[in-house]
Every structure is written in C-alpha cells, then in structure tokens.
C-alpha cells in the first residue's frame, strides 16, 4: 500500500459528501508486526465547504503475518469499547475486502502526542513517569477484566464456561503450533502436555481478554497516562489471568528484568490489577497461565517464522524471530518445566508451574 491515489479513492468512497479529498504524508510506520501500519493525514472539504483535516492510521492485512486473526472482530471490539473506561482510539471504518488496498483493513483515528515504543519509556521526556505509567497499565488491565461485556451486548464473542477457558485456549494454540511448525518443537509440545495434565481451577470470572495486553501495545504520553490500548486482534472471552500473566511475562520487560512490563514490581502490578478488577490472583492458577503464556508466544513466533519461510511475507524481523525468539521461549519453558526433573530425578510429576 504505497499508492496514495488508491487510498484517496477509498476515502472519496466512504466520504461521498466530501470534496477535494487529499491524502498527505502517507508513510508506513514501525510496529504492529502482525499487520502493516500506515499513517496519513486526510484533508477534505465538507458539505458546507469547510476545510477539514484528520490524522488517521490504516491497519492493513498483509498476505501473511505473525498471526492469522479476524480483522472484523477487532473492529467490533474497538467500537464496543468506545465510551468505556478503557481508552481506545476511535475506529472509523472497516473494509473487509481487498478491493481498495489489496487486503482487508481498518481505519483508526491517530492519537498524536503519544508514543508506543517500550524502549522510549526509559528516556526523556517519558522516564520520569514510568511508575505512573506502570500503575495505569495494570489498572487498565484490571478494568478490561472487569468490563461488563454482557451488559455491553457483545454477542459477537463466543463465551466459554469458566471451567473451559483454559481448555479452549490451550487447544487453540496447540492447533496453531501444529499447523505452522516446521520441526519437532519438543519443548513446546511437552509443555502443552504438562499443561493439559495439570489444569488450572475454573476462571473466577469469564472476562474480556485483550490477548496481547502489554507495554508496546499502549499509547502513552509524557505524563504517564495511557491514551489508548491497541492491537485487539487476539481479543476473546476467557480467564482474565491469561492477560495478567501475559503482561507480566519476561518477554515484555525490555531489559528491566525485575519489573513486570518493565515498569512495576510484579507484586505491585498484581495489587493494581486486583484493585481494578475486583479479582484476586490465585498463585496456582497464575502459575499455569504463566507457562501458557510461553506456549502462546511460541505459537506466535512459529507462525511468523513459517510465513517467512514460505515466502508469504518479507518482514525480516520474522526471520530474526525464527533464529532467536523460538529458542528464547524454549529456554524459559525448560527453566520452568525441567526444574523438578533436574532436582529430584523426576520423583514427582509436579505441577504446570
């Protein structure tokens, strides 16, 4: 999608009363490895002849990516959260076909004056607000868990029974891994087996699970405020501990290995989340979801690596994932699951955690 004329034609189509529609500063931006992300300024004159201008983000499905997810569902989630206490950018249009830009896409408002890149959190002008940002991050995570999706009429989401949340997610990611793996992946498959044999207790509440809620997927500002939660493409209903364990996992600590999300000590992060969600973090259940987080991450990396190997994408960071991150994830799983075997020669089967 480098053709500004094609983008302009699309906006002429969705803004039939607009005249002098023009696209300025169309550029692909870094981030969002699962989708192509483009920024642009749209200018037009409205029906009254008044000049209008708006910053927009286009999230375009490429031929392949880290994930194979449902863009329509993501758009419905953005719309469904508008006006709630969970900040999201306004979702403006969804185009399900490839007619205009070669693939499905959605158009969001661009929230200016913010940053998403986690590494920037630790440098000026953001460094002084990291702790506040951390508290907001986990507070919003708790609000997502508390969001009343039944009252909001989210019929587009399939709700599992509390005792089935873990089973459905594990089966989903096992299937993703089986479809995309290019080699045996013994560590990940052993982890799946262990998780299945030692399930967690039922979810305390069947809640909205963002699916990729972490530093890197929120828009933050200099004051440490979270201005928007992004990348809802893996959103589903399930056990809210799935999100908390994902947010806190070592992958998203950005070199600050003692801090959940790179921003807050884990105990404080859990307290903020518990306060906002009204739930408690059960240690046994949380341990299960911690191991599951590594399996899920492995599913994402394996999918991206396979798509690169098959020539479906030329995103070079996916090749890097294939060479490094799959081994990183394996190492984390070995440290968790091989520990009791090493300690006692396997005298006890141990738990998932």
């Amino acid at each position: 999608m480098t053709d500004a004329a094609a983008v302009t034609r699309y906006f002429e189509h969705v803004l039939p009363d607009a005249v002098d529609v023009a696209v300025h500063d169309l550029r692909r931006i870094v981030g969002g490895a699962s989708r192509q992300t483009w920024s642009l300024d749209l200018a037009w004159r409205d029906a009254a002849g008044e000049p209008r201008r708006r910053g927009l983000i286009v999230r375009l499905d490429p031929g392949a990516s880290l994930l194979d997810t449902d863009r329509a569902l993501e758009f419905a989630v953005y719309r469904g959260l508008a006006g709630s206490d969970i900040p999201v950018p306004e979702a403006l249009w969804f185009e399900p076909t490839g007619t205009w830009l070669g693939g499905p896409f959605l158009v969001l408002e661009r929230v200016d004056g913010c940053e998403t890149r986690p590494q920037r959190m630790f440098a000026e002008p953001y460094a002084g607000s990291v702790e506040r940002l951390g508290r907001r991050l986990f507070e919003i995570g708790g609000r997502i868990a508390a969001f009343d999706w039944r009252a909001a009429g989210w019929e587009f989401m399939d709700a599992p029974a509390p005792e089935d949340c873990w089973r459905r997610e594990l089966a989903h990611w096992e299937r993703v891994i089986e479809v995309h793996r290019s080699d045996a992946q013994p560590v990940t498959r052993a982890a799946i087996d262990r998780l299945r044999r030692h399930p967690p207790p039922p979810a305390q509440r069947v809640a909205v699970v963002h699916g990729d809620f972490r530093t890197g997927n929120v828009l933050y500002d200099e004051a440490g405020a979270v201005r928007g939660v992004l990348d809802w493409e893996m959103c589903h209903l399930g056990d809210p501990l799935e999100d908390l364990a994902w947010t806190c996992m070592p992958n998203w600590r950005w070199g600050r290995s003692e801090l959940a999300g790179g921003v807050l000590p884990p105990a404080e992060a859990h307290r903020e989340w518990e306060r906002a969600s009204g739930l408690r973090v059960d240690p046994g259940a949380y341990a299960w979801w911690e191991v599951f987080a590594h399996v899920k991450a492995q599913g994402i990396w394996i999918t991206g690596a396979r798509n690169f190997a098959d020539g479906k994408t030329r995103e070079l960071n996916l090749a890097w994932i294939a060479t490094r991150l799959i081994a990183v994830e394996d190492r984390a799983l070995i440290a968790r699951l091989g520990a009791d075997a090493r300690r006692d020669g396997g005298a006890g089967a141990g738990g998932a955690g």
Partner: protein
Amino acid sequence: MALIARPDATAMLEGMAAALVEAVGPELTTDYARSQLASAVTLLRYLAGEFDGAAQSRLEEIAEVEETLAGAAPALIAAGAGDLAGRLTALLAEPAADARLSTLARRLDALDEALLAVLLEAERAAAASTSLAAVRAACWAQLERSNARRLPR
C-alpha cells in the same frame, strides 16, 4: 563453488552487512526502511557467526540425542513400553546419509520427535518408576543442551 572461495562465505556475509550499513543506510529516508535494514544487517551478522560451525554443531547434537535415546531404551522396556523402545532401536540403527545441513536437520528432527515421545512417556510414569524418573531427567537435560547450542548463554 563460491562458498569455499576466498573471501569465504563468512567474510562475504560480514562484508554484505558492512556494505548495507555504510552504503545503503545513509540513503534511507523512512523509519520503516531503516528498521528493515537493521534486521537485514542483524541477520547477516548472525549467519556469518553461525556458518562455519553449523554442520559440526548439528553432528554433535545428533550424537548427543542418540546417546540420550539409547540410554532410555532399557528403562522403557522395563516399564512395559517395549513398542516405543523398539521404534527407538530402529531409528538409532538408521545409517547416516550425508553431511548436508538439510539432511542433518531432517535426522535431528526425527530424533527430536523420538525424544519427545520418550519424554511424554516418562512424564506420565515418572512418579511410579525410578528408572523412568531418571529418563525424564535425562530428556530435559538433553533439551537444555540442545537449546544451549541454538542460543549460547
């Protein structure tokens, strides 16, 4: 064969990375293009570091996994998993084909599948069998060694 000419493949890969940084990088105008270039350079340097020792490392790993599997067979037979032990014996008896990286990868993949089968058997029965508990520990130790080859500490 260009790969064994001088400069050799490692030097060529390192040279390509340097050329991209020095000649192409300054010409790029967007953050996205610069991030793609950075990924290309990182990959080239990684390949340069791996290229010379890749086949040797695979051969060593294959030998380690074969040894782990051979050590597991008696415990499997004693625990009543004779079918699995028989499949291991047949796999371990297969002659080496050649030293192409693709051939070595296929061999290692077959061995890893067998290692997983043994590990899952041992995970289920470790509490009831001291010998399978030891097999389980050996499998995890092997997975840790294999991981260390892919991701040096």
